[in-house]
């Protein structure tokens, strides 16, 4: 027995990084299982391929970063490998699994031609893990959410070849798109494209009986995951609440114009459609809550959520792209360090910060009012 000197405090909360990552994996389980049950092998491929690639990339990264430092002697590969292997930890395994599963769930079930999906999965996950995370220094250092970065890259490169599983929903407009991409194809008019949303039952959207990526459509499963994350406190409720709340509020503003001007569209139908379509819930649950890429204090996190909500709404309502969640995540990731700047950072909700947050929200409200208020409806 020897006596060890250490600095205070001498006790610690029962918690660990690995435990937190396992919590996220548990929260991802309902979506993954539903997805595998519905899409079968395609879902398995979407999940396993990115996970394998990301794990491999992280493993290589750990080996490179922990190689024997230069000391004048030549070292064999075995020596480098052994030293790197010693630094390989549980979180090096779990973190890429989390990123990989999220990325896989954001990809479609197939493509046309069929081999493109493999290329998209491989390149997307490589881009996500390497450019999105490892070049910054690995876990905890990254600016971008790896899954969002990979998903956006894959979508920009191969998006036109994606084929979404119809999953029981028969679209009258175009086969192979999502509910949201059908919108942009229905009409280029900002309001007119909502003319047919009454055809889709909200209950079907909640259960995931609509086309979409293999994970984001199953809202009930995502909600189970979200509740688990919030109970386990693995996600910060401030971001979830400010993002989903901000999104709902801004869409409620947009809904006033849509319901007033577009015939046959019910206000609540529009609101429900906005909340249940696309990746809003999925992004809010698994991607906006990534603690590494968000600001560190409470006011910053609320602003982060509001900003994300505003950007998502703007891209959805005005954008040429059907879906804005992943883009708004990446833009918010870029802004997060600025929200943390030491000159004004602090964990208190000061008057100035509340005012700034309200101003931010007001800008988005104004943009929606100006954009939709003067719009004439043509279908």
């Amino acid at each position, binding site marked *: *027995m020897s006596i060890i000197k250490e600095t205070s*405090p001498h*006790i610690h909360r029962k918690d660990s*990084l690995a435990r937190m990552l396992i919590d996220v994996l548990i929260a991802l389980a309902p979506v993954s299982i539903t997805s595998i049950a519905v899409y079968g092998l395609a879902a398995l491929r979407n999940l396993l391929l990115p996970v394998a690639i990301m794990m491999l990339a992280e493993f290589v990264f750990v080996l490179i970063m922990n190689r024997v430092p230069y000391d004048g002697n030549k070292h064999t590969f075995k020596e480098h490998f052994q030293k790197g292997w010693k630094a390989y930890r549980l979180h090096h395994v779990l973190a890429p699994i989390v990123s990989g599963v999220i990325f896989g769930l954001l990809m479609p079930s197939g493509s046309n031609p069929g081999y493109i999906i493999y290329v998209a999965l491989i390149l997307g996950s490589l881009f996500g893990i390497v450019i999105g995370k490892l070049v910054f220094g690995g*876990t905890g250092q990254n600016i971008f959410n790896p899954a969002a970065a990979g998903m956006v890259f894959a979508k920009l490169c191969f998006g036109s070849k994606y084929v979404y599983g119809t999953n029981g929903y028969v679209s009258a407009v175009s086969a192979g798109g999502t509910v949201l991409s059908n919108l942009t194809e229905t009409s280029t008019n900002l309001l007119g494209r909502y003319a047919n949303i009454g055809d889709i039952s909200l209950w079907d959207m909640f259960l995931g009986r609509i086309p979409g990526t293999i994970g984001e459509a199953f809202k009930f499963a995502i909600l189970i995951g979200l509740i688990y994350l919030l109970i*386990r406190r693995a996600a910060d409720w401030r971001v979830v609440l400010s993002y989903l709340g901000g999104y709902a509020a801004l869409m409620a503003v947009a809904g006033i114009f849509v319901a007033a001007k577009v015939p046959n569209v019910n206000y609540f139908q529009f609101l429900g459609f906005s909340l249940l379509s696309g990746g809003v819930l999925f992004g809010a649950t698994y991607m906006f809550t990534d603690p590494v890429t*968000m600001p560190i204090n409470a006011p910053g996190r609320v602003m982060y959520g509001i900003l994300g909500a505003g950007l998502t709404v703007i891209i959805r309502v005005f954008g040429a792209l059907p879906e804005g969640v992943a883009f708004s995540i990446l833009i918010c990731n870029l802004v997060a360090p600025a929200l943390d700047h030491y000159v004004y950072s602090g964990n208190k909700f000061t008057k100035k910060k509340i005012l700034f947050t309200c101003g931010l929200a007001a800008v988005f409200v104004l943009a929606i009012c100006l954009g939709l208020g003067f719009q004439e409806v043509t279908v």
Partner: protein
Amino acid sequence: MIAPVSSIHDTKGLLQTLPTLALDVPDYVYFAADNARCGAAEFYVKEGDRVLLGQLIGMRDGRFFKQPIHSSVSGTVEGFEEHYHRSGKKVKFLRIKNDHKDEWDPSIKDRSDEEIAKLTRADFAKILEANAMVGLGGSSFPTYVKFNNDKKIEVILINAIECEPYITADIRLMMEELEKVIVGITYLQIAFECKKVLICIKKKHRELIRMYQEYLRRYENSGIEVCPVGNFYPQGWEIAMIKSALGIDVATGHLPSEYGIANFNVSTVWGIYEAVKHNRPVYERRISVTGDGIKYPSNFIVRLGTPLAALLEKCGGYTEPDKDKVFILGGPMMGASLPSDDCIITKTVTSVLVFNHEAKEEAPCIRCGSCVYSCPTGLEPKQIMDAVKAFDKPRIKALNPLKCIECGLCSYVCTSHIRVTDYIRRAKMFAKTK
């Protein structure tokens, strides 16, 4: 887990139900020649001299105050020895051989109640200075300094919170020395000419609160009240205590006395009673010896200068002797760890904790923000840590680490087991230099 700490599981457990044991007075006691606040001491006795219990044997010289040293046994002076002090340094100790007669110094006489009723605040300061009273809660701040001003005090707060986990010495003191504590409080009322006294006790110690409420019925209209406060850590920090008891925010860098508040630890109140009523210096104190490395955790009344080995022996020694131990004087959150168990009990040792060492590896910070949410002073530990790593002095200063009270919560909550508090300590050093 992204969440602030609401309350630390306090593991006081059954230890708070055990009565305090009186430890046999050891054959040798030791007195440090210097301590955390004072430089080298001047001893008035030399080898071979006979000393009496309570006799003034030396004087430590602080920069702003002097601290007398009193013998805690009667016996013979035997020269110097080196041991570890509470501050973690090895210092010289004066050794006194105990003759087990406990002869009191003739100058130590009781005061009558009439005499005490006539004492002024300045008299109190004199008595406490002569009896070397310091904050027995662990701060070792000389108590007389709090009496040495003429600010109007409107309310006296008694800190009986003991918010550090594991420690139960104060709770046992409150139960066992109930009367002395209350009489000590009435002395404070005399000294500060102030009626209102609040005894702050954690809400969850319901029995203690009931006990005091029942006993205080004997002191009707005395102005002494029990004030239940929150269960969280660091509730015992004076500014947090004032906030929850009175709702007053004491600004950083200001003293509670500027707001008309005087606060004392409950064991200091007990010490004040002994000093004023019996004119005794602090010659014994209560100590918790606990932790998972101790076989039979217990509370003790020990003479100052007792070597720790005697306490450990009485506790049945260590558990699992093949495991490495961490040896802490003070609480598990703020206490200092010692490199050896060769240590001497001084006035300011509130507890001895022995833990089985558990090495925890640091994982990368994932910016979960638990440290930011937990900080009782509203700092952002993670940001300060980044600034320290970058040696970015303007950034460190802007983040204001000097507000930190080193409560240790940021390390306690860290999901990645990073010792954040160490970085904040370094930041404080940076911020103090130009």
